[in-house]
């Protein structure tokens, strides 16, 4: 009985370990990184400020720590004080080539002064869309 429970617990842990859902890195709760992108992305900093006096501006500084060129697929989402998402061109899915070890800064200005919160999604284009909200555009 104890052996069976042990095996079940081990299997559950193994399954949890294999999950491919995107996870926010604990240091940067605004980031949502896909499982494949997580294997080669190194986040250096997440920066935020204001542009044009009252528009929230957010950015992420990162680099590709793998030895091969990668393509990053990213999207900034903006939310108002009530948690509703604000649409605009600054919420589009975009792509950026990442050469090995080359530092890259990606930043966007919020579409409206109502934006008080943001989320940055970083994915690899090869990640299956079912694991994320990829494909839903702003």
């Amino acid at each position, binding site marked *: 009985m104890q052996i069976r429970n042990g095996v079940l617990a081990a299997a559950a842990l193994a399954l949890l370990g294999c999950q491919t859902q995107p996870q926010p890195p604990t240091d940067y709760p605004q980031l949502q990184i896909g499982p494949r992108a997580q294997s080669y992305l190194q986040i250096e900093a997440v920066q935020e400020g204001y*542009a*044009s*006096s*009252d*528009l929230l*501006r957010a950015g992420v500084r990162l680099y590709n720590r793998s030895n091969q060129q990668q393509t990053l*697929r990213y*999207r900034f989402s903006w939310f108002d004080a009530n948690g509703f998402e*604000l649409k*605009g*061109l*600054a919420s*589009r*899915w*975009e792509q950026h080539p990442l050469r090995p070890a080359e530092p890259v800064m990606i930043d*966007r*200005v919020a*579409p*409206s*002064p109502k934006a008080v919160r943001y989320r940055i999604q970083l994915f690899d*284009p090869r990640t299956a*869309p079912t694991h994320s909200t*990829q*494909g*839903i*555009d702003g």
Partner: protein
Amino acid sequence: MSTRNTLIKVLAVSTAFGLATGCTPKTQLLTPGAVDQPVTMGLSGSDFAQAASDAVQSMLTSGAVDRSDGKKNIMVVSTVLNDTMQRIDTDQLVKKIRVDLLRSGKVLTTTAIGLNGAEDRMTQAYGELSQSRKVDRSTLVRQRLAAPNMSLSGKIIQRNNRVDGNQQLVEYYFQLTLTDLANGLAIWEGETPIRKLGSAKGTSW
């Protein structure tokens, strides 16, 4: 004999119909921003969105549309030339920019003034309502049109180059300028290049 011939004809027609319908590509609804978006050598909606997004982001970060008096800028759309080999409506670009600038709360666009007359001719028609006996004049509001203080103009350029025997490079340049109408100076300028490499057999118009 004739029954056999008829049977063969029916069979041939139904086979041809079956093949034709079977080979027809299925019509799909594309999800905006999906990974597997088709890429064309010509200009597509995503190219316009990219150029418009770059322009608006650049305008907002440059401070060109900031005002210290709390008022909003009034923009008029001047000429955006299509110098490509394609028949495109430049409003595909301009409308996206207008929508995003309006959302930003920094810029309003006038639809009452334009190089080719008012974009919305109802503004002028409304002014003539006071002459009509059919209209209850107590419901009319006095018109005071806001004059623009900045103008958006630009050009979309296309360049085709043969890379080697099989490939061609098609380059598009979205060039935009924001002019301060008080002094005629360009307070913001931007250029978004979009480059596409594809088969030389394909056409980009």
